[in-house]
């Protein structure tokens, strides 16, 4: 379906009459199909500006709608509703209502950068997907996605200790998203993992979770990064006029 007409030809906009006779001619059923006329008056003129104020969205204005991003997109191949070109089009026009229809799948971009590789206009659509997902969250249209939650647990750990200790990140994330650590496939994986492993290695992996590795003399770096992130958050909040919205709570 051509994306520009997508919103027009949704089932609720298509009208047919089971029985209709015009000037003595029977046009019942599909003969009388027409698309309801529509007037768009709810443009959000600030939409492009706000999304381009978030990291990754900077070059959205360069898009000339060639469609290479969607054509190459990994997630689009699994779900045709996942359509970077369409969303960029909507953002540029300020069609917020239309964009919100897809708010629950937009975060599913896997950052494979196939779109960025293919884009002839250096839009970096992968970045736009991230900026748009953050915009949805910051504006309170969606709760934080599992992806954002994971990024946050991960980034906090890096900022705190300088390093990632995987089992701690995974435990933190599973805790936050109420996932069980004893799901069948996970247990199967661990079983296969330890099949050939010597006991010392297992001990070491266990110990690592207790010893909590840390980069030395990291405190100053941590503070500097925290300071920088706080500044950035304040800037984003200002660009998005966030004092006027309340973000949605998780769960």
């Amino acid at each position, binding site marked *: 379906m051509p994306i520009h007409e997508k919103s027009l030809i949704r089932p609720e906009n298509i009208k047919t009459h089971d029985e209709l006779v015009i000037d003595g001619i029977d046009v019942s059923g599909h003969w009388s199909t027409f698309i309801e006329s529509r007037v768009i008056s709810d443009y959000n003129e600030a939409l492009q500006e706000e999304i381009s104020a978030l*990291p990754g969205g900077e070059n959205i204005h360069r898009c000339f709608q060639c469609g290479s991003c969607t054509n190459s997109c*990994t*997630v689009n191949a*699994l779900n045709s509703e996942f359509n970077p070109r369409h969303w960029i089009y909507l953002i540029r026009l300020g069609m917020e209502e239309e964009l919100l229809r897809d708010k629950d799948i937009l975060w*599913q971009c*896997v*950052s*494979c*950068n*196939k779109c*960025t*590789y293919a884009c002839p206009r250096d839009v*970096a659509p*992968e970045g736009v997907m991230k900026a748009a997902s953050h915009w949805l969250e910051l504006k309170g249209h969606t709760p934080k*996605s*599992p*992806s*954002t*939650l*994971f*990024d*946050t647990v*991960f*980034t906090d750990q*890096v*900022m705190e200790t*300088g*390093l*990632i*200790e*995987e*089992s701690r990140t*995974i435990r933190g*994330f*599973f805790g936050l*998203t109420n996932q069980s650590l004893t799901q*069948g*496939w996970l247990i*199967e*994986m661990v079983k*296969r*993992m330890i*099949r*050939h*492993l010597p006991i010392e*290695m297992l001990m070491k*992996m266990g110990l*690592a979770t207790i010893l909590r*590795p840390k*980069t*030395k*003399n990291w405190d*100053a*770096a941590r503070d*500097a*990064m925290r*300071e*920088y*992130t706080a500044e*950035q958050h304040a800037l984003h909040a200002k660009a998005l006029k966030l004092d006027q919205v309340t973000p949605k709570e998780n769960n």
Partner: protein
Amino acid sequence: MSDEREKYKNVAYYPGCALEGTGHAYNKSTKAIGKALDLGLEEVKNWNCCGAMEVKNIDPKLQTYLSSRVMSIASNEMDHDVVMAPCNGCYHNLKKAEYELENDQEAVEVVDQISNKAGHETYKAGEIETIHALDWIKKAVGEEELEKKIKGGLKGLKVANYYGCMYTRPRNIYPEKDQGEGSESTLKPHYMDDLLAVAGADNVEFPLKTACCGGAHTLSDSDTSTKLVLNILMAAEASGAEVIATECPTCHTGLEMHQIRAEKMFGKKTNVKIVYFTQLLGMALGLSKRKVGLQENISDSYALMKEKGIA
């Protein structure tokens, strides 16, 4: 021996977080082949995480800083010209930081500001060259020399070479790729194919070399990752591969983990084995299975290697 080779013989080594955890076998086998090939690896002192794929989603410039600190230590404190990162994520991030610091004044300022506060020298673009483990073997040894050192070899093992996303994309951070003969291709990478061919592998024609495994959402959107991995596994089997060779701990673990998940959750069983290219190269160089950490892989390739008479 040319100076060019000499430059890559002793390099700074940035294993990254994954190689201390799930990617331990990659770390082990990388060091083992370094030793077998007389190459020097000096681990970056007191290194930090590069931010993987996650920190950039919180703020890209934080990731630029994290990577720049690693490069700063390797170049300013350890006096290295080259830093080698075997993980695609680390390699990609260091390259990306290099690109940003070369081209974005704002990134330069943020990095300078955080580095000053953190109390170390600010990294400046051009001070060090970041390479992948594949570049390392290619540049420090090369196919000709490698061939002389192969003992036993891979005996025609059918291999699908899987490079993943971050090794070639986005293109702008890899200015040295796509530069004609001898350089790596971003569309159809071949460095791993080249090395394993010399080691005696029979590389299959594999169309999904740079497909994505969904590594970014391996835990946050597991069904998507499982579907993407299943595509890769089935394409490898359809191409006739017995083994998928990997060059990234995230890809590697993702393939292993979702191979099981596809079997348990979707009832789709695949048999292709997943092995790090460094493990394959190590065994071809005559190292034992244990020396290259084959026992640590979740995907069990012991029987296959035995049947083939490898290592």
